[in-house]
Structure formats: C-alpha cells, structure tokens
C-alpha cells in the first residue's frame, strides 16, 4: 500500500516501487489497493485489507499509508519510508512529482527489491 503521494517526488517513488512489485517482481504474491478506498470506507477494500499482511510505503514522514491501513484494521508487517531510502543516496536528484530521473528510479528499484524479497520470503522473486 503506497501513500497517495500526489504532487511530490517522494510519493511518486512510493507509487512506482509498488507497481514494480505488483507488476514485475512479485505479481503472484502481491497486489495493491487504492488507499482512498480505505479512507472512504469501501467495504470490499476494508475486508481485503483486514485479511492481508500489509506493507506500507510512505513518501513523507506523515505516514498516511501506515496510519490509514492500521486504522482500517489492516496488519502492517512492514512500514517503509521513502525518506529513509534517501539516507543512502546523499545528494540524489530523484526528479519531480511527475517524472523520475535516474536517481529516482534507482531508489525505486532498491525499495521494490526490498519489498519483493519480503513478500516472497526471500525466494522465488519473479
């Protein structure tokens, strides 16, 4: 579950890392869901989140994804903050809220690989 992350590059990284996991690295083991569905109380979304182990990816320290998944009754097994990933990439130029630069994609791949390893129990990463 990434944060909504619109309007900021950190949010875009959270979103792209999610797509990389659900579309490429672990499409069988992971799926994603619109956070706004939880916020608006969509019953189907709430039921799904309550039956799943959730990994949240937040762009900024406000932790919207982690907080809302927990409030919706989801079990957050791992909470990832994009800002933390930047600590290993001092001076990185990640791009903008609409387009990622090379540094941004590097961080996306790093986060996505981390999540895919977690989702697939460290093996069978597609």
């Amino acid at each position, binding site marked *: 579950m*990434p*944060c*909504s*992350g*619109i*309007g*900021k590059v950190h*949010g875009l990284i959270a*979103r792209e890392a*999610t*797509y990389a996991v659900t*579309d490429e690295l672990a499409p069988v083991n992971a799926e*994603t*869901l*619109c*956070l*706004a*569905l939880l*916020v*608006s109380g*969509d019953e189907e979304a709430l039921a799904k989140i309550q039956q799943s182990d959730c990994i949240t990816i937040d762009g900024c320290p*406000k932790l*919207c*994804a982690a*907080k*809302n998944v927990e409030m919706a009754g989801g079990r957050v097994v791992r909470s990832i903050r994009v800002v933390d990933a930047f600590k290993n990439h001092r001076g990185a130029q990640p791009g903008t*809220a*609409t387009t990622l630069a090379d540094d941004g994609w590097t961080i996306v791949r790093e986060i996505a690989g981390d999540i895919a390893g977690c989702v697939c129990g460290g093996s069978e990463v597609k």
Partner: protein
Amino acid sequence: MKRAILPCNGLDKQQGVLARELALRLMETQGAEVICPVLLNNSPARYEKALADASLLVIDGCPTRCASKLANKLGLRVDDKVLVSEEAKSAGLDVGESLRPGSVGMQLVEVMEAGLARAQELAVSEEPATDFESPTDYLTVTYDKFIFKIPAQGYLFNENDCWVQAVGSRARVGVSDFVQQSLTDITYFEPAEVGREIEQFDEIGSLESGKSMMDALSPVSGRIVAVNSQLVDSPELVNEDPYGRGWIAEIELTDFDSDKELLLDAAAYSMIVEKKAAEAQR
C-alpha cells in the same frame, strides 16, 4: 482565481491513473495546487489556506468517487467535477486496463483538459462569489400537522415554489420548504449546466425523491455561473436547509427588474403555499 485540484488516489484502476495524470497536467500548465486526498483526510488544516483562496476541482477516476465523497465529508465547496469513466464514455475512448497511461489514455487527458478550459471560460465569474446569508426570520404557514417556513425578507418566489435571493448582480436560486416537505426525502439531484443562458422559468435542475420528482424552474433570467455540486452527493441538504445549503444554482442576473414583476414576496407566496397545502390534502 487560483485553482485547487482534489484528485482521487488513482492507483489501481486505469481511470484513476488518468485522474491523477489530469491533475498533474493542470498543476504544470495552470499552476494549480494539487491536494493529496489522503493527507487532506488526515490533516485538513494542512490545506485550509489553499482551499480558502481557490476554486476547487474534484477529479474522480471511477464511479466509486472517493474524491467526491471526501470533499463532501469535509464540507468543501466544489466548483467543478470530472468523472474520468464518464468522460471516456462521452469521448468514445476505450482506455483499457493498463495502469500506465497509454496513448489513448493521454488523448483522453487532453480532451478533458480542453473541456475544463472551455467550461472555465464560460463559467468564470468577473467578480468574486457573493456571500449569501441564510434567513433568520420566517413567516410560517400551518396546515394540519405541517408547518411550512418562508423567509420573511430577502427572498422572492415564483408560483412554482422556487426562490431567488439576489445580492447585487448575482442571485442564488433554490426550492422552498414546501417543496422539500412535499417531496419528502430527496435522493437525487441533477444540476444544470454551468455557463448556460437561461430565461425566467427555464429549468435549473431536477430533484427526485421516492415519492415524486420535480424540475426546478428559475425565478430569474441570466447566466448560470455556478451550481451546488454538493447536492449531487448530498441531495438531502435540500431537506435539511432549503434556503441555505440546499441552494441549487447561482445566476448572473440580466433582467432582474423585469423578472420581479412575476415574482412574489413572502406574504404573497405564503397564500400560495396555504392553497397548495389544502389541495394536497384533498
């Protein structure tokens, strides 16, 4: 006036992805402020100033309409709305199911952007929106167990049970307490098109309840400069506050002096209500 945009989250459906693309496009081309829906829900104060100073465009991807629901929940005044799935249907474009905006998707974004620009040209008001105050004094008409309220001052009525409240060259129109009580629980509101020129007694929206439906007929002539989009999601506001939050449209007046000749003040309208209430009981 600056524009603020509240898009849906737009993560797991193509229409949502395009809602987000449209929001970002407008951010880049118009300098609009994009509001993060989840952050808004968690910390409304974060966007208080941005929302106070701007007109609000809500963009929903799919019919679940998460962004509209959020705006409604927070009581935001919505000036424009876009539902991407409907826009795709209108434009005859099949955007597919990929979560990447393909060429057809981007074509739809361009269509929507152009449509919004046209609507803005038509709807843009030359003056800031006028403040309309809710009534404080009422005349009442009592019939059997019903009590119908009519604002004592500041409102005029047509015989079709619609009211107008004029401030300067701008007016707000809606339906009376008699209408909302007659319809009972209102479940559906269809707004008129912003920018349309209307004559007195032209239709300015329709209301429907489990009991009946009604086309609201404008007490005045002019140009529709805004509609109360909140009623689309919360038509019950007409029941709760027919003379205030249940307003239907704002009109830029063109011939109010002539219009007034066919309108009634509170006392005259109360006699109409009395008569209609008696007829309804027969």
